Structure formats: structure tokens, C-alpha cells
């Protein structure tokens, strides 16, 4: 166990080191701070003097060590646009993204497990086929398009005039297919409740929750099909195994076999894949937040790119890198703990 732990931690540190070198290289190569500090008329000799005074002419590794030292103390420099410490800007935007991810995760967990298990137990039923069909359509619609469709249907509204209004059922069908569209689709709204520090929450008021609904559905829509298909595939495999057959032969109630015995082993691979998907989720928050103008990290990062706000870009990369590395390490450790068959010290297959 100790050996496994050490190995994982070394791996995590190595990844963090690589990310920080890349982040520093970006900072080092984009733009010249001296040029931004002094005017056109300043001669080259004075520029060189200033460069030397600020330590910008030091070799790459010396400058990197300085950068890494500052970063470890939480100092990523000042954002060009916000004119405040980059970490401060990130802390301000973080709660919005976390709440969005929380909403989406809630939807994914609540929906994917029952649907996945059901379609594994009854693979040939009409409902299962429907879920599988919907899930492949879901995978094929990019997350920003799902978001746009949601806005059109639930925020702007759709007026259907396909059927003749005069006939008995035409008017009713038109009304049934039309949507009024009243859901908010822009930002976090006004009904935020202050919790602590930078954290204003959407979760504590009806108006706030309403703002969270569409972005959460959009973000969940891309991961939900993946999880349904994964849970279904794993569950079907588990249901073929000897111990399930034995439990059936013993006469244990099917409900107990499915949800107690089989589900436990189904969830093992789901944990690992779920951990890896956190990375994908961060990428999709950028897209979702752009469509809904949700003031979280993703939108902040995209704005920083368009404004060439280098310190903020670098800080975002480092923070996201830390989040990735921590979650991936935790997922590996949890997997090692709950699955005794994993070779803790051996080389990965």
C-alpha cells in the first residue's frame, strides 16, 4: 500500500511539474513585459538594464524556479484585465463553475444508474431500446448545440402551427407542441444568497435554482449517454458471472441480486471512468458557460484568451491541472481500496 501510494504521488508530482513547465513556457514566450512597461523612446541600453534589474535575463531554469516558488505560495501574478491577483479572480469565479458541475453531476448520477441498470436487466424491452437510441443521439449532439436547442425551446419558446388550427385536434396539438419559454438562460440571475467569502450560491433560492436548470441539463446531456452505456455494458457483463448465477440458484430475490450484488461490481469501472471524465467535464464547462454566459471559470478563461490576459491563462491552467491531478490520484487510490484484486505495486497492464 505504501509503495503504491508513493508511486501515485510521484506520478502526480511529475505531472504537475510538466504542467507548470508548459504554463511557464507560455508565460515566458508570450509578450515582452519590458515593452509593456516602458515607452517607445527608451533606448536599448536602458531596457537591458531594466531587464537585468527585474531578473528577466536570467537563464530559463532560474526564472522557472522563481515562478514555481511564487506559484507554490499562491502568487500567479496580476491579471492584466482585472488588475488584481490572478488567484483572486479565479477564486471569485470558482463557485459558479462548481455549482454548475454539482447540478450536472446530480442529474447524471440520479438518471444514469437507474436507466443503465434497467436497460441491462431488460436489454430487449422497448424502453431500453428507446434509451439506447436516445443516448447515441445524445452523444452525437455537441454540448453547445444542446444548450442552444434548450434555450430555443424553454427560454425563447416555440410556436407550432403545423396542424390546421380550425380542426378539433389541430389546435390542441399545436398548443401541446408549443412551449411558452420562460426559463432564464443568461447568467446566474439576481437571487444569489451569500454564503461565505466569494461564495454566492444559486442553490438556496427558487430564482437561483431556475437559472441553474438549463445549464446543468446542457452540461449533463453530453456525459449522461456515456454513463448509461457504460453502466449497461458493465452490468450485462456482471450478470453473466458465476456468482450472480449462484445467487439466482440460491433463490435470492432478483431485486436484491441486481441492486446489491451486481450493482456493487458494476460501479467499480464506473468510478475510474468517472474520474477520467472530470477532465472532459472541465472542457465542457467552457462551452456550456459560453452559451449561457454563466460567469464561471470557463467563461473567464475564454475571455482571458480573447484579451490575451497571460497571467490569468497561466493561473487557470495551473489550477485546473491541480484539480485534475488531485481527482485522478484520488480515483486511483479509491479504486485500489475498494477493489482488492488490483495489483497495488505491480506495473499497470
Amino acid at each position, binding site marked *: 500500500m505504501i509503495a503504491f501510494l508513493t508511486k501515485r504521488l510521484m506520478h502526480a508530482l511529475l505531472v504537475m511539474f510538466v504542467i507548470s513547465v508548459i504554463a511557464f513556457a507560455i508565460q515566458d514566450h508570450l509578450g515582452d513585459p519590458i515593452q509593456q512597461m516602458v515607452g517607445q523612446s527608451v533606448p536599448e541600453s536602458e531596457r537591458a538594464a531594466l531587464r537585468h534589474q527585474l531578473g528577466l535575463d536570467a537563464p530559463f531554469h532560474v526564472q522557472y524556479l522563481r515562478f514555481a516558488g511564487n506559484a507554490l505560495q499562491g502568487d500567479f501574478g496580476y491579471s492584466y484585465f482585472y488588475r488584481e491577483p490572478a488567484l483572486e479572480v479565479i477564486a471569485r469565479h470558482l463557485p459558479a463553475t462548481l455549482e454548475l458541475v454539482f447540478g450536472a453531476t446530480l442529474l447524471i448520477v440520479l438518471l444514469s444508474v437507474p436507466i443503465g441498470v434497467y436497460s441491462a436487466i431488460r436489454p430487449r424491452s422497448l424502453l431500453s431500446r428507446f434509451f439506447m437510441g436516445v443516448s447515441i443521439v445524445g*452523444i452525437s449532439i455537441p454540448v453547445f448545440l444542446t444548450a442552444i436547442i434548450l434555450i430555443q425551446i424553454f427560454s425563447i419558446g416555440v410556436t407550432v402551427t403545423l396542424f390546421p388550427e380550425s380542426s378539433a385536434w389541430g389546435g390542441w396539438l399545436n398548443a401541446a407542441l408549443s412551449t411558452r419559454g420562460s426559463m432564464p438562460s443568461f447568467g446566474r440571475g439576481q437571487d444569489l444568497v451569500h454564503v461565505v467569502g466569494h461564495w454566492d450560491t444559486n442553490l438556496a433560492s427558487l430564482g437561483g435554482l431556475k437559472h441553474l436548470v438549463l445549464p446543468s441539463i446542457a452540461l449533463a446531456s453530453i456525459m449522461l449517454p456515456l454513463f448509461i452505456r457504460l453502466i449497461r455494458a458493465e452490468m450485462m457483463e456482471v450478470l453473466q458471472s458465476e456468482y450472480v448465477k449462484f445467487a439466482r440458484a440460491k433463490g435470492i430475490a432478483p431485486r436484491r441480486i441486481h441492486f446489491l450484488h451486481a450493482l456493487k461490481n458494476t460501479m467499480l469501472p464506473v468510478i475510474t471512468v468517472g474520474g477520467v471524465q472530470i477532465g*472532459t467535464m472541465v472542457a465542457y464547462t467552457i462551452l456550456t458557460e459560453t452559451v449561457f454566459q454563466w460567469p464561471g471559470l470557463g467563461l473567464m478563461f475564454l475571455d482571458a484568451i480573447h484579451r490575451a490576459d497571460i497571467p490569468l491563462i497561466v493561473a487557470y491552467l495551473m489550477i485546473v491541472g491541480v484539480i485534475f491531478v488531485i481527482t485522478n490520484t484520488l480515483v486511483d487510490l479509491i479504486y485500489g481500496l475498494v477493489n482488492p484484486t488490483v495489483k497495488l505495486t505491480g506495473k499497470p497492464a
Partner: protein
Amino acid sequence: MTTSTPAASRWQRLRDSYLLYSFKRDWGAQLCLAILLALVTMALLAPWLAPTDPYDLAQIDILNSELPPFWIDGADTRYALGTDAQGRDLWSIILYGTRVSLLIGFGAVLLQALLGVVFGLLAGYLGGRIDAFLMRLADIQLSFSTLMVAIVVGAVVKATLGGGFYSNHAVLMLILIIGLAEWPQYARTVRASVLGEKRKEYVDAAKVMGLGSRRIMFRHVLPNTLTPIFVISTVQVANAIISEAALSFLGLGMPETHPSLGSLIKAGFDYLQSGSWWITLVPGAVLVVLVLSINLLGDWLRDVMNPRLYKG
């Protein structure tokens, strides 16, 4: 190894194959292939099929902007699917946009496959330090998700080279970015099959005959790993097209003057609130149909060819 008339025997083999047999019996797969081929043909023939040239500023009139498609009141008969915010014919620009999306999708997958196959072969066949290094690299990249890597690389490249240069070479840039971001999928798949093939007797026989590693890798092992490569390629093309659309939607891809389906959706999104939903949703529908038909074909291929794909 092959018979005296390889061309004829290959044709015969295809006709007798299980692949063709199951294709003939599956109307879903036939429909998907038909739709995909129709879209590809339309995209290839865009300059001849499109009524107007959307890249030619002289043919665009801003007064024609935001005209609805034919089934809505106020439509102009000249523009079947309506016009976008700049007054460009939506049908023409979708044809050209599909062309750009497909070009980038297939280009990026070619690059991925090239990198992934070479790295996967090296890692699987040679093993040792090369294997550890390449697979660690693949693990790290995959743990970040390919889309995230593509967004970050795209953002950094754009900031480094400047927006103008990036826009002028957007097709090449996107192929490079998506290709570099997604090679680990191929590398893992190829490596897994190579590890299986390496232990077989024909490889030992080739070694005994004194053939070099390079020759064994590319001429003997590689042909036997083609089935899984073929199967994941379909899904990878769909992924690459979606990645391209996502990058374009974020403003890191094709510029609006030379749009792909993604940048058309982005451009139209600004006009959604004013009621002109077709500018964004019609290209969106084309994108979904394109990706869906590729994904369904990929699912079908996976079921039929049933390769031992690398799991986990």
C-alpha cells in the same frame, strides 16, 4: 502469401465476407452509409451545387439578411433555406461549411492515425523505456481529455501567432491541433493489439529468418492490427468533427468569412434571441445528422467486426 491475382481475390474476399453479408441485412447501416455518402458528395460538389459563392463578397447583399427558410412566411424563393445575418444563402454556405468540417475531420484523423500507429507500434513492439514514456504521455494527455488539450493548444497557438495568421491558416492549424490532441486513442489501441500479436509464431519465424525490427513491425505486425484501427477510426472522425465545431464555436477555429458548421452555429447563435433560429439550428441539424450517421456506422462496425478493443 497472396494468390497470383491479388486484385480478383480481394474482390472475391470482400464479396464473401461477413462484413458485406451483415451490411446487406442491416437497413439501419445502409441508411447511415447512404446519408453519409450523400453528405460527402454534396460537400465535394459544393462549388457546382451551391447557387451562390459564399466566399465572393460581390454576390452578397446585406439587405437580404435574416430571410427565413421557404416554409415560413416572408421567405424569398431565391434562398430555399433562408439567409444568415450577412445575407449569405444558407444552403450554399452549409454546403461549403460541411466541406470544411469534413476536410478538417478526415485530415485530423489521418494525422492522429499516423502518429498513433507509429507510436503504438514502437511502444508495443519495442517495449521497455520507449513504451513507458509514450504510454505515460498518452495517459497524461487522456486524463486531461482531448477536447481540453485541443482548447488549450488552440488558445496558446492563437495567442502566440496572432489572430490574423491563425485565421489565415485555420484549416491547417485545426488539423494539427486536433491531430496532436487525440493520437493517444490510436496509440493505445495499436499497442494493445501489437502486444497480442507479438507473441504469435509468425513473428518468431520472421525473427529467425533474420528480418529487421522495422520490417517486422510495419510489414507483418501492422496488417494484423488493422481491424481495431478501422473500427475506432469511425468514432474518431465523428469526435474530430465535433472537436472542430467546438473550437470554432469558441472562436478558436474557422473564421466567419470561411466558416465550418461550427462557426456557422456560433455566428447564428447571436441572432437566436431575435427570432432568427434557422441561422444557427439548420447548420446544427446538418452537423448532428453527419455525426450521428458516422457514430451509428461505427457502432455497427464494432458489433460486426467485434475486435478486442483496449479496455480501461
